[in-house]
């Protein structure tokens, strides 16, 4: 195991600890927590098994293994971003519906008040 691999394992471990920390503090929840936990474990796995992965890359015809890892990592991060955007859009839609419901309920309350005022004045 060389220095570079040791540093890589250290950073991957720190990232995993970070994810676990946020999960235990409820800053990351449910699916989001699991998604990042999975990514952190995969990162650590890659860092530990650099040598066997080098061989896999060679079999696939990739002469410089980090290129393969960066490409895969980039695609994974891109997908994670799309997933975040979908979640965000979903939340926006739910907030919009809630706002509309609040407006409707306020309107109904106001109508009741106006009716009461009318009844009192009669």
């Amino acid at each position, binding site marked *: 195991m060389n220095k570079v691999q040791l540093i890589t394992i250290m950073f991957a471990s720190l990232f995993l600890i970070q994810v676990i920390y946020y999960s235990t503090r409820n800053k990351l929840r449910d699916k989001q927590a699991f998604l990042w936990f999975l990514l952190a474990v995969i990162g650590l796995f890659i860092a530990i098994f650099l040598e066997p992965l080098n061989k896999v890359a060679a079999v696939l015809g990739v002469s410089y293994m980090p290129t393969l890892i960066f490409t895969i990592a980039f695609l994974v991060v891109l997908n994670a971003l799309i997933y975040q955007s979908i979640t965000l859009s979903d939340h926006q839609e739910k907030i*919009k519906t809630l*706002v*509309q419901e*609040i*407006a*409707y309920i*306020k*309107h109904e309350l106001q109508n009741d008040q*106006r009716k009461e005022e009318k009844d009192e004045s009669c």
Partner: protein
Amino acid sequence: MDILVIIPAYNEEATIKKTVMNLIQTCPYDYIVINDGSTDRTLDILKENRFHYLDLPVNLGIGGAMQTGYRYALRKGYQYAIQLDADGQHDPKDLEKLVAEIKQSGCDMVIGSRFVEKTNYKGSPFRRMGILYFYYLLYFLSGVKITDPTSGYRIVNRNVMREFANYYPVDYPEVEVIAKLAKKGYKIKEIKVEMNARQGGRSSITPLKSLYYMTKVTFTSLIRSIF
């Protein structure tokens, strides 16, 4: 009464009273103002005059405000819903024409158009070019000929209200919803209406936003016309 006039209002303190009073004096239809989280005195004016309104606690944009109105119309059992701008651009005198047309023609949506026949409308050349672009875009994508696709002055029946309650674009909805309705086989028609110059307030579309507007609407219309 089976017709509801929906008036979306965002910071329209200068015109809202006049628009609603004009509507009340001109037409017998029910109306609802959707105060879209205005930061000026719009809400105070609505309260002071005891107008009918729904008050959105935060700004949802024109699409969110209109969808609120369509959902309200559905819940209250209205058969038709009409959009009327709060800035005084739409003349309530044309409401009767829109109502008569949708009832007689059996169409699902009738749009008040500035261009289907000659009117007094004088828009900037740039705006006219934009409208012409959307006319050809819709014709190319959906095969419908709508001369004034950006007009917000439109009446819809209950079937379309249901569609809008399920999905209505948040911003720049006019062109996109035509593409969507045409794709689903709804019948759309236009009739001539006169439109006044803006009586007050600010246009939601500034020159800087135009490019974004054109590109975004082209993309969303393309999506709606295919899927």
